[in-house]
């Protein structure tokens, strides 16, 4: 017999592996703006039973210029089980993402996933509000896909440096999300303005849940508003990862559970966590 059903983290009753190492083929890897690229892969269907907020752990290529060693975690930007397509939106930063940027159509690319626990949409959550910035929008994009599938109303407040730096707003709109964009350029992305915007939303049509990711500023704001109006929420967090599978314990962060502070693994108990349990940094 296999040990699947004994896995403490397992809540599925399916036998066989739940995370897969698969070699995909690059379909495209184009610039999304000056700093981001969208990598679209031809992926085997059996790895595409994904939840929004889950991630893959990517084996970046080794090139003459770049020699990344560890895998790099990236949120799923979009997945389509029928077409067999998987996409990542990533910022070109260091050794690994620079190496990823060299991928061209037809190249092989090894991915491990889907991994982690994603966002949830409870049956009685109808008005969903998403607030995110920068690459955080990549992480939240599949939530729009899922909200559309479930017929819920999703509003996305997308924040960026400038109008030009705004990512994925078209992608969100295509999925039926109402997009409100705010920028540093015109001052609309300030915490105060965001608070005003969200308070107005809550007053007008009500908000059943908040979704966000990554930013400390947004975390604090949404925790405050969530407490005040008793609105639940979820946040995706990041941490350095080695295994991505829950084995090495390198990716822990502290969370408030009642009066205790517990260390949870971002790759296994996360990357999506309860908004109020998350701790600022």
């Amino acid at each position, binding site marked *: 017999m*296999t*040990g699947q059903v004994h896995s*403490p983290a397992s809540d599925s009753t399916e036998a066989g592996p739940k995370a897969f190492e698969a070699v995909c083929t690059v379909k495209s890897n184009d610039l999304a703006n000056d700093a981001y690229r969208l990598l679209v892969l031809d992926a085997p269907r059996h790895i595409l039973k994904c939840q929004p907020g889950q991630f893959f752990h990517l084996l970046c290529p080794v090139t003459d210029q770049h020699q990344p060693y*560890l895998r790099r975690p990236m949120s799923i930007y979009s997945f389509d089980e029928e077409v067999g397509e998987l996409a990542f939106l990533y910022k070109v930063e260091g050794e690994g993402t620079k190496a990823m940027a060299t991928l061209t159509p037809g190249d092989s690319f090894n991915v491990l996933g889907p991994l982690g626990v994603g966002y949830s949409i409870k049956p009685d959550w109808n008005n969903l509000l998403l607030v995110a910035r920068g690459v955080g929008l990549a992480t939240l994009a599949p939530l729009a896909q899922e909200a559309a599938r479930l017929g819920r109303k999703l509003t996305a407040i997308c924040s960026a440096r400038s109008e030009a730096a705004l990512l994925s707003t078209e992608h969100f709109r295509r999925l039926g999300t109402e997009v409100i964009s705010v920028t540093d350029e015109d001052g609309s992305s300030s915490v105060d303005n965001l608070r005003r915007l969200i308070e107005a939303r809550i007053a007008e049509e009500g908000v059943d849940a908040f979704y966000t990711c990554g930013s400390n500023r947004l975390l604090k704001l949404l925790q405050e508003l969530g407490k005040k109006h008793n609105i639940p929420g979820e946040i995706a967090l990041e941490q*350095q990862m080695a*295994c*991505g599978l829950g084995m*090495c314990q*390198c990716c822990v962060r502290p969370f408030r559970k009642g009066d205790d502070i517990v260390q949870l693994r971002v790759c*296994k108990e996360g990357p999506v966590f309860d908004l109020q349990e998350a701790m600022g940094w």
Partner: protein
Amino acid sequence: MVDLSVSVGSLTLKNPIMPASGTFSEDLSDVLDLNRLGALVAKTITRELRSGNPTPRVCEVRGSMLNSIGIPSKGVDYFLQNTVPFFHEYDTPFVASISAGTADEFAELCEQVSVPGVSAIEVNISCPNIEEDGKAFAMRPSTTLSVMEKLRGATDLPLWAKLTPNTGEIIEVAQAAEHGGADALVVANTLLSMAIDVRTRKPKLGNLMGGLSGPALKPITLRMTYQCAKAANIPVIGCGGITTLNDVLEYLIAGASAVQVGTATFINPTAMTALVDQLTTYMEEEGLADLSSIIGSVRDGEAADSQFLEATS
């Protein structure tokens, strides 16, 4: 059919490939069939609850990694109630790994984990001995001998002593572990290293320093495996940087009876089962029935001076 089985003291393993402590857990059953491995080695536990080191706990160095996980531990009770039963479902020997700050606590924990379902105990003596000057037990032959004697008194299970590559006396430490009652040596743990973020000028690890693992470590721990296999009369389990079939073979040829694979699993989670498959194919292609003609077969006695290069074939 090739026979990949090896014996490590009284224990017979169906093949020589097993995970290294701390790079493996129940979670790997999400990706591969644990029954295909030679043994299953748990993450080191301590008796009490521990939270481990500050983050960041890992960083990348050229072609390898550093870690300063420390030993976060849910304690021995959790281990006995959850981890041991989980692995009991597999027909592969399960090896506990333990650590403590004093020899007495070490022995006590050793006794506590000597339960059905545990086939051997790996004693991680590469951890600081807080009664002495904080240096790891396995840094010196004397502290190795005394802790191993206490551990030997605490259990009838096979004891695998996990050595540290930070010592300058690996041969003497290996012999001390043997004299103290070890049934096998695991050579070796990670090597203390450092990396600095030039932009922030901060160490890349929250704990300032951490252990090097992965390919960069291999030539060093392979050398130590060779030295220990020569100097001791108990089996040696090689560990450090094993990634390819070639790496496995080098360790076996150097004298290891089995090997542990750590960091490679982070890069390719199915690395261990792939190595089992590749080893099988290799044996078939070479026409070898079992591993006895490989283990310890290093040709180190011949005059090397005559190894010149013929380049005209």
